[in-house]
């Protein structure tokens, strides 16, 4: 399988909008007298060969400045080249009947030949299956070999199939062998670590037309992709202008529907579990999320662009065919004829923001973002941002509810699956994100998302804290905990929404319903906030129901908020008092009663519950202020019984004196 990544010189309009970007700068391999470029997908190596030398670049951690490792091999034609999985051995297909092996350390060589004339070698690949280390695909079938450290090849098994061509990706460990006149009969084997599994034979769908009654499928028409851990096969049906998708199960291959094609040439990439279909003639890329049943694209088609490309300086990678450039249009940038898209590894990343700007259904967008692994933190920040925006834009409550349901369900799922890990507290104290349009250029050093020359960058208008960012960027899941939703969504919009508290309460209720359904807990400050909002809009009936039905979970904080909000409404204050009493917060309860002027009731309660922590002067002063000497006398007596040694205090003395004074003056 020959693979030649390439790029071209272009100038890019800076204002152009796109979902998918090619990373700039790209990796350059300026090797004089290059005879070809190969991509070893198992080792993620970009290999450039000259007549006697092999240059290989690591692409797993993308770095444009990495220097290649160089190996010398004997001269000869090179049809394909792949390193063994330990990178100890370089294997080179010299002809249709010969493969040579070179040990990089011992310089040992070995030549493997097939029966000339009766069969020919179509290609080979290395495997990490326990059964074999190397698979050689021939027209007569597939040979599986074990290879020891001394480079002895031992034939383990032969799968007899007539093969016209084959495709393999290391990512899926799946090899598809095409046979038949139209090459539409497919036999598949998966050489996984669990062993070699034969997939049921299946026929690909091909439409026929009068002009072409027997179309033939070529290897370039078939793509193997892996998204969300599922393996799909995509097959171009040019006559029908459809891209058929097949999903592989352990014991079945099921056609999953078709995507329309708008171009006579087409290729696909996978970025972060998203399928990018490059409509090469139309020079646009359409993004699909195969997770959802809908075959609707995630976003509107937009061109592929360079990211960070500075200007007019010329081309990048040397590439024999593709040196001519097209600068026809500012936006239309890419897709030279010479481009080859490497299915699993040619990684483009979408800008989430562009999608979020072009996708109208927010909840499916959030679902989509919640499935993103590559940029978990950014997806998370985006989700928070979207949720906030939904509320601030006062979208219909049902829409917001759906969106929040999505986030809560995703969180619940990831907690159950053990993906979500609560970060330390310092993280949550990071600034509440604001839309200040911070620079998108942070975070270059991402671990994943590398590619050969096409790289991704996410553009976000979301801010990023400094040190925390690093930590957050290592999040494995974009899931958002209820506490975070409270902090970064509800609490942060409260001020802006205070005049529309009804709306916000509606959304919070739905949020509470959602987390209650998932049996989750949330920061009790959300209840305090709900009390505040309901009181603000004077919805006392509901406040009462919320409290009695425990939608607002009782706590000291909530009770105190009820008391505070009850300044306007006695019934609300009463709810707060009742809550204090039910929580057995005697001290607060008694103090609040006295504050409301119910000092006798407070004292009775104190007497009954033997509460002595409340300052005795509170009762005395209240009674004295109400000028009721009978009460004052009664309180003095009760306090003397309640508090040991009360009669010796100066307080007792003072009020007792006051009492005597008044009563004597009354008597006079």
């Amino acid at each position, binding site marked *: 399988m020959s693979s030649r990544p390439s790029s071209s010189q272009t100038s890019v309009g800076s204002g152009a909008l796109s979902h998918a970007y090619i990373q700039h700068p790209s990796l350059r391999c300026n090797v004089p007298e290059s005879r070809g470029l190969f991509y070893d997908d198992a080792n993620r190596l970009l290999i450039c060969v000259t007549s006697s030398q092999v240059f290989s670049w690591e692409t797993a951690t993308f770095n444009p400045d990495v220097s290649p490792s160089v190996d010398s091999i004997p001269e000869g034609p090179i049809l394909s080249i792949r390193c063994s999985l330990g990178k100890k051995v370089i294997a080179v297909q010299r002809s249709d009947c010969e493969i040579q092996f070179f040990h990089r350390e011992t310089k040992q060589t070995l030549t493997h030949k097939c029966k000339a004339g009766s069969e020919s070698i179509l290609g080979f690949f290395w495997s990490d299956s326990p059964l074999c280390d190397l698979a050689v695909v021939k027209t007569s079938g597939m040979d599986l070999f074990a290879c020891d450290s001394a480079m002895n090849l031992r034939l383990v098994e032969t799968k007899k199939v007539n093969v016209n061509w084959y495709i393999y990706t290391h990512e899926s460990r799946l090899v598809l062998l095409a046979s038949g006149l139209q090459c539409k009969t497919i036999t598949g084997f998966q050489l996984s670590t669990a062993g070699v599994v034969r997939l049921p034979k299946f026929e690909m769908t091909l439409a026929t037309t009068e002009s072409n009654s027997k179309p033939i499928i070529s290897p370039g028409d078939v793509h193997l992709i892996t998204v969300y851990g599922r393996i799909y096969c995509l097959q171009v049906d040019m006559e029908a202008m459809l891209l058929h998708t097949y999903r592989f199960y352990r014991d079945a291959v099921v056609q999953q529907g078709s995507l329309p094609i708008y171009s006579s040439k087409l290729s696909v990439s996978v970025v972060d579990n998203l399928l990018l279909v490059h409509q090469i003639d139309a020079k646009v890329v359409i993004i699909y999320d195969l997770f959802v049943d809908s075959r609707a694209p995630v976003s509107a088609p937009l061109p592929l662009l360079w990211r960070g490309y500075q200007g007019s300086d010329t081309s990048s990678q040397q590439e024999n065919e593709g040196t001519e450039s097209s600068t026809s249009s500012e936006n239309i940038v890419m897709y030279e004829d010479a481009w080859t898209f490497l299915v699993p590894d040619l990684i483009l990343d979408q800008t989430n923001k562009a999608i979020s700007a072009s996708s109208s259904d927010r909840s499916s967008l959030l679902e989509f973002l919640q499935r993103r692994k590559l940029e978990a933190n950014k997806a998370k920040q985006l989700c928070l941002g979207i949720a906030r925006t939904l509320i601030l834009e006062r979208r219909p409550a049902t829409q917001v509810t759906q969106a929040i349901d999505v986030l809560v369900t995703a969180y619940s799922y990831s907690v159950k699956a053990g993906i979500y890990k609560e970060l330390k507290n310092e993280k949550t104290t990071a600034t509440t994100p604001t839309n200040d349009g911070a620079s998108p250029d942070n975070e270059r050093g991402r671990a994943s998302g590398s590619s050969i020359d096409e790289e991704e960058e996410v553009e976000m208008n979301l801010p990023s804290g400094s040190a925390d960012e690093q930590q957050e960027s290592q999040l494995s899941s974009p899931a958002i905990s209820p506490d975070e939703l409270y902090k970064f969504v509800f609490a942060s919009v409260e001020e802006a929404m205070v005049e529309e508290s009804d709306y916000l309460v509606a959304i919070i209720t739905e949020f*509470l319903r959602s987390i209650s359904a998932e049996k989750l807990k949330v920061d009790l400050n959300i209840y305090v906030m709900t009390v505040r909002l309901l009181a603000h809009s004077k919805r006392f009936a509901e406040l009462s129901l919320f409290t009695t039905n425990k939608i607002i979970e009782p706590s000291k904080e909530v009770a105190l908020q009820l008391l505070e909000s009850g300044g306007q409404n006695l019934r609300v204050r009463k709810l707060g008092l009742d809550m204090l009493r039910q929580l057995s917060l005697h001290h607060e309860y008694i103090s609040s009663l006295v504050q409301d002027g119910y000092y006798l009731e407070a004292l009775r309660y104190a007497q009954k519950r033997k509460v002595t922590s409340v300052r005795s002067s509170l009762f005395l002063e209240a009674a004295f202020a109400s000028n009721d000497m009978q009460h004052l006398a009664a309180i003095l007596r009760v306090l003397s019984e309640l508090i040991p040694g009360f009669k010796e205090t100066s307080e007792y003395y003072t009020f007792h004196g006051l009492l005597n004074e008044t009563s004597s003056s009354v008597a006079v």
Partner: protein
Amino acid sequence: MASMSSGDESLRLCVFDLRRGQTEGQELDKILFFHPPELDVSTQLSVTGLSEGLITFTRLFSPEAACEVIEAERHSHVFFEAETDIWMVMVVEKNKDTGAIWRIDALRGMLKEVHSLFVMFHGSVRALLEKEPTGGLTRAQLYPFITDYLSTFQKRSRSEDWCCDLFVGKKLQLPNFRETTLSERGTVQMLTLARDTALEVQSLVQVLDSCAGNLQCHSMILFQDLLVSTTLSPDDTTNLFTFAVMRLTSQALLSSDASSWSYLRKGTGSSETSSTSGSIDSQHHVIRPLQNDKWKKGKDGFLVTDVWGLETGGSPDSAIPIVWLQQRQERVYLLAYQYKSLTLLLLLPTTAVLNGGLSVSAVKHQVIEQASLRIMKIEEKISRGWGGENAYHVKGYRYLVVDTDLEVSRASPSGKVATLAKESLLALNKLREEVDLEKSRAKRQERDLEICIRAKNNAWVIARVSRDKELYMALEKASDTLLDATDAVGRFSNW
């Protein structure tokens, strides 16, 4: 007195306006309502005259609160000043043998209730009088309204043994001590919900609220005869709740189906009042919101009635019930939707419908579209979690708890209260009467009393009253000590 031949002699109820009929010979103009209507004019005048005299006299000593009750040997006169200078007076016969033992506050509660309901549907009596100074309209509306209200109690006796003769059945039976001792008129009974159900309900409330677009509308949800949710103020809630339980809930509809005869007024038309009101009926557009058997469940789940007219006449919205919300001081359309035991009331401001281009049918459509599925689910969920009519029964106790601030009460189920011995109930009734008296005397702050009394039959009757809550209880376990009784109080009241 010879004309008092009908079975209603045990009850007289009148409404009169002290500002009317000041000159001699015009006294009849004072009377806005009198029951029984067939009573001759002179007797009517003597009842109102006596009442007015008492009011004027007691006002000399207590200008703020004139007389509340007059206890005569055979009758009790209960006074209630519904609006300034508009008085309602109820005269009931006392008879220990027939069980005609009353608690005055309970009777006054009925007067308050019927007045509140009247205001909810027609606005205040004073406003009606100002609108139409002859009083014809007021009388025309009051007459059927109060009669329909009283027929509720008539109904009760009828449905118990409903094959009896109509005339016997027509006899009014005001709720006596058996019914009033462990219940509190003018309060709402709530359904206790689990948190997750409460959240579902609240979510439904929000959907209902949004059915009228951006308009602020109100809603109330009942499950059987219990309140599930409301967005109205306590006063409005209580009124609407009372009305719903009387006429709208699944049980109210069921009982009207069971006795599917239409109520016919048996008035002879001989007395002047009834003949005037009869002739006025044709002049004024009289609406009888409390008329029985007038609500039916439509195919779409909404309850329909022709009380407000027929949909065919005039604008399509003219036949929709309208009520007056006190707190918001606005008139609202009342839409009632029912699914099994769940009754939902939706209140739409009339101004928005008339001026804002909101159509009631569009709102109905929204409710069906957006909420009907949730309603179904919630009904199912509540039904599953509900313990039946004895859900709030506490074994060994017969109790009533009232939260006077929130206008909410909860009591032992009536079936369980009925198992109490008559002596216990009478003792508790007596105790309540005393407490009522004490309550009206004491300042709010000082309301704090706890009374445990051992009745003759060894039952404990208990009252505990605080600033905002009241508890009444009867324990019939003879072995219980006072300590047990106070323990029980502690268990029922943690305040």
